[in-house]
């Protein structure tokens, strides 16, 4: 597991404390009951905090699963 992925797991763990690590790797609004709009806002803020990135408003809709967030972070290469 890369450093970015490990840190992202921690971020998801803080926002969705009920998820086991194995579930986090496949987390999406469809698989996580508590992933609503408020959870999305919380996830966004913790992501920005943890990775020091400023997510543009037009990118927010892209961050809809653990995998997509990881891809986004790698693309940003801000980590």
């Amino acid at each position, binding site marked *: 597991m890369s450093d970015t992925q490990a840190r992202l797991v*921690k971020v998801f763990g*803080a926002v969705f*404390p009920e998820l086991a690590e194995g579930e986090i790797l496949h987390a999406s609004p469809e698989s996580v009951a508590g992933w609503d709009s*408020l959870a999305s*806002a*919380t996830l966004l803020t*913790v992501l920005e905090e*943890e990775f020091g990135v400023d997510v543009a*408003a037009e990118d*927010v809709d892209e961050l809809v699963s653990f995998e997509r967030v990881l891809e986004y972070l790698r693309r940003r290469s801000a980590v």
Partner: protein
Amino acid sequence: MATPDSDPAPGPLTLAEALRIAAANPPASTAGAMHVALACGFTPLHLHTFLCAQLRLRRPERHVRIIGGLYDDLPGTLERCLRERVDAVVLVLEWADLDPRLGVRRLGGWSPSLAGEIVEHAAETLTRLERLVRGAAAASPVVVSLPTLPLPPLFSTPGWLSSAHELQLRAHVSAFGAAAASHARVRVIGTQAIEAVSPAADRFDVKSMLFSGFPYRTAHASRLAELLARAVDNPLPKKGLITDLDHTLWRGIAGEDGPAHVSWDLEHQSQAHGLYQQLLRALSEEGVFVGVASKNDPAVVDEVFARDDLVLTREHVFPLAVSWGSKAQAVSRVLEAWNVHADSVMFVDDSPIELAEVAAAHPAIDCVLFPAHDPRGIYDLLLRLRDLFGRAVVSEDDRIRVASLRHRDAEAPASLDATDGYSEAVLERAQAELTLDFHLDAGDARALELVNKTNQFNLNGRRYTEREWAEHLSDRRAFLLTASYRDRFGPLGKVAVLAGRVEDANVHVDTWVMSCRAFARRIEHQCLKALIGRFAAPAITFGYRETPRNGPMTQTLRDLLGEAPEGNAALTAERFASVCPSLPHRVTVKDERSDERYAGAAR
């Protein structure tokens, strides 16, 4: 109960940290769960999380439940709070709550022609909110945060100038805050406190506000939540301050420079000592014990205290423990005279060695260096003292505390301790008057304060939040008896509280406290006599539990029962009559309750 505190946490929590702390909440079934209603017009989102985390940090043993309202319905949320009893209502106001055009999520217009209308509408909203806050405060304590965010650029003036409309708007908010703060159960967050920890320019998160309706940057939300949690927790102020004299209360050494040459004024570059005196005097007048521990010649110190330019005069200080003995001994004498525990006391001295000596002898005392040659350091100390000793409301009981302590000392034999008593002759000479009041007023703040801060004469050490106290007294079997005392030396105020349950003539006392100022006056006997008489009780049981500090209560029960007390100790009316000493007080019994309430009790 929480201890007083003044220093903010080293840094704000991150949201991830707050989420983890909030998630570690003990189960909801845990005894003493804390229920807090959070009322705000914006999406509470991270403020909800930070508030939960900060409350958990302060009270890790308690389950914390934050009850939120609907987004954009602040009045509706407050109205719901009127119907629900909680430990506290937290009202967080922002400009958009006063008029949506003062926010960024509505496009109602920023035309110059609308400015007056916006201000007028904001004033109307504040009037309505004030009514709701007063209503909510009748049921629960209310914590209010006035707007913390910068105003949007709607007024015609450039940002470095204030327009008349902006100042009018701020004046309305100030008037609302002043009206709210005048209510005994409303606590308004200090504007200076939030300014000190959260720079104004770093508070607003416009992206978050537009995206999710949450207006704060996380650092600001964390800092604000920390202050809100402190206000909800409402830590008890410290009770007493013991100060050194030379180079502390004044500049100079009285014994060497001479009583006429020590100073505390601008002329001698010693004004900071005068400010220190000024604050100690204010604290004394607010009910804080201020005592002196000094290595000095008592006659010389008396000469300084005879100077008419001293700001902290002799009447504000008790006792003066002045001798050539050790500081630790002097502090012991002061603590003995006050009869308070060391952990509610601060000792201030300019000498690190003296502080170390006192700290070694009295580890629970908060020993603080007086930075005699650093005016900025002295000023910071004044701010710290205000935080540690400050109280939202100064009651009549607070105002008379120091005078009554001095009178008690004047009358007491030198060897009197908590379980000895004054002689009958002394009590008769004192012309003691006792008012015993049976009522069930959960809003009697002094009664709850006594229950929550008394350690020595305390049946079991149980503390109550305002919500728990109100629930305790709302039971149909509940009784509450308070005792107020005065004698020819002046009033002591409300000094004792008994509460419990009455069922089928069985009186069970689960709460019994008495101020240490009232020891040895046989007030406890009068209270039991009134209780037995009021309910025609053949016996009283006590929910006793030994605590590290309730030795005086244990001794009293031992004397009454003739044996060491245990849980649910029972005292029969017959036994009480046989051990009760003569009671020379003049007693007035008030009873506001109807007999129906005690339908199950024999009369």
